[in-house]
């Protein structure tokens, strides 16, 4: 069960090798979490992630899970929920894709969409139903500021996150009053292996900062969490920028993780 501060005793991570998810798991284990299920494609990375969490004193299980195989989600998640209550489900899987390549290779683009959106719709709904049946729990969905306004440089990834984000918001509304809490987390540029090699942005953040924000959001039962928090304002400005203007902005300004530049241009309009 959650305690008065929203801290879970059991955690299911979908996307068990995600650095953000593992940072969150470490943080929650330092509080109340004693049981963790790491779901992901079987790999040495998944096993070593589990081993690392075990050293922190948690009871950690790995679960084979493939976002691209929605048909299996029901049975995979069903097995986890059959073992006991899951206080928090962290939906953390996702791929960035390679925009330039994916524009030329529609099949590759579809795979990004299927992983980030279709896989989340399927596993999110399965998790939501199980949480609703147990009458409590949080579903934490890792979205991205990239879904807030599509931009030229990564609109395939961005559109998949936009779909995921809208889905999670709607799911939160559907579950309102059922005892289940859905929280959408929108980080900016996070320094992880996913973004390695990409030019870093001024408001870049870390997995640990996202984990801190998730813990705070759980306590407050927040519905939307931005990391860092100032992105809420920055993205609001960018979202309302006219298309023509938005298109003419230099790429580093259109990047949502360049808020300082963005603010300057928008106010100069």
């Amino acid at each position: 069960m959650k305690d008065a501060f929203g801290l879970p005793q059991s955690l299911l991570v979908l996307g068990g090798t995600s650095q953000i998810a593992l940072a969150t798991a470490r943080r929650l284990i330092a509080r109340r979490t004693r049981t963790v299920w790491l779901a992901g494609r079987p790999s040495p990375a998944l096993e070593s992630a589990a081993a690392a969490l075990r050293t922190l004193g948690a009871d950690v299980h790995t679960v084979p899970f493939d976002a691209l195989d929605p048909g299996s989600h029901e049975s995979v998640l069903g097995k986890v929920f059959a073992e006991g209550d899951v206080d928090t489900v962290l939906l953390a899987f996702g791929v960035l894709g390679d925009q330039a390549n994916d524009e030329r290779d529609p099949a590759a683009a579809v795979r990004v969409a299927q992983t980030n959106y279709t896989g989340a719709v399927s596993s999110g709904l399965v998790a939501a139903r199980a949480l609703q049946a147990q009458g409590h729990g949080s579903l934490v969905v890792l979205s991205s500021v990239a879904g807030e306004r599509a931009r030229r440089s990564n609109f395939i990834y961005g559109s998949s996150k936009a779909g995921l984000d809208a889905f999670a918001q709607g799911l939160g509304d559907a579950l309102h009053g059922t005892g289940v809490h859905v929280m959408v987390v929108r980080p900016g540029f996070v320094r992880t292996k996913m973004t390695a090699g990409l030019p870093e942005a001024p408001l870049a953040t870390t997995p640990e900062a996202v984990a801190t924000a998730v813990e705070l959001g759980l306590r407050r039962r927040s519905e939307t969490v931005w990391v860092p928090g100032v992105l809420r304002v920055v993205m609001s400005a960018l979202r309302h920028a006219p298309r023509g203007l938005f298109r003419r902005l230099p790429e580093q300004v259109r990047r949502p993780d360049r808020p300082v530049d963005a603010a300057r241009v928008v106010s100069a309009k």
Partner: protein
Amino acid sequence: MPAETTTEPVPVTGWGRTAPSAARVIRPRNYAEAVAAVRDCGPRGGIPRGLGRAYGDAAQNAGGSVIDLTGLDRIHVIDADDGSVLCDAGVSLHRLMEVLLPLGWFVPVTPGTRYVTVGGAIGADIHGKNHHVSGSFARHVLSFELLTADGTIRTVGQGTDLFDATTGGMGLTGVVLTARIRLQPVGTSLMSVDTERAADLDDLMARLTAGDHRYRYSVAWIDLLARGAATGRAVLTRGEHAPLDALPARARRAPLAFRPSRLPAAPAFLPSGLLTRTTVGLFNELWYRRAPRARTGELQSLAAFFHPLDGVPHWNRVYGRDGFVQYQFVVGYGQEDTLRRIVGRISARRCPSFLAVLKRFGDADPGWLSFPRPGWTLALDIPAGLPGLGAFLDELDEEVAGAGGRVYLAKDSRLRPDLLTAMYPRLDDFRALRAELDPRGVFVSDLARRLNFQESR
């Protein structure tokens, strides 16, 4: 006719309004419906609930049933000569006072609110300001009828295992349907109250130790925001039921009248963060200054002396949507240093708590999970949104457990499960009895899940 039942699960929380979970709420109107409610409570079980004054998750049951006993509220027999009452578990202490006071009887033990049910009073084995004299509620319960998981109704008397498991058992042994309670005779419905101020914690403890035996009721309000030399400064209020000859002529015409006043309820939506160090500090300063240095024999109404907060319905809303946690612990006599250290830590941390109460417990009653034991008990309310509060209270738990003390389950919403056995050494007996009495785990609550009541590890 079926019991009044919500068809869809609805969110349920305790009085502290933290950690809501959804449950089907069944409100039986007679014993047959109560039996049916236990039989039909579903795979995630059920838990009895009264007026929802437990601060944490004791009367929540996520995904299962919550059996609301407030529909069973008949007072069956009052023996006005002998001083006992037989009533349903859903009867509130407020209702009992309304009915019994004109007859010259009072409830034997009342907590800081009248809006608790008899069933809840037994389940939490509540205590009041008279614990050092009268013990906890269970001491005055002659017997009760318990509806157990197999659907049978058993009469349970004092001195049996089932009695001692149920008093303080947080509703996890079954549903109390009726209870026979021994009452306290009173001559009037007024209290004769002595008030004094204590300059710091040591002064307070000395005054409580020296004087408590002279009073039936005793309590101290502590200013936990006061620091330095004033750490632990307090206002003591101690009293007795006023005898008839202490009343002025006008009041003697209706000496047993019970007329509690009620202010408008707190608004439904208040922002979090009204109770800050500044606002609470101001309140505490005023409260301390306004109390007389020493005053004896002041006449107060029962409601003003026992239940000042009941005058403001829904006062729990002033904590906003974050809600609040109540922290109450007891440490035995001889552990005064632990108490001093904890008070010092709370003061140093500047927790904005305006409801902090210290009192001395007397002899413990035999309830296996009953909270009181001889020693010092401190209770405080803290806004749940205070940063770092969870970790801080965990540290206090360690001190309390290390000193052989315990925290009060009726108020808990955040204890670390592994400390439970240290605090309640008879937990394993409780688990064993439950395994036998309720092998399928029909009775279960969020509190029981959170604190691993099922498992013995």
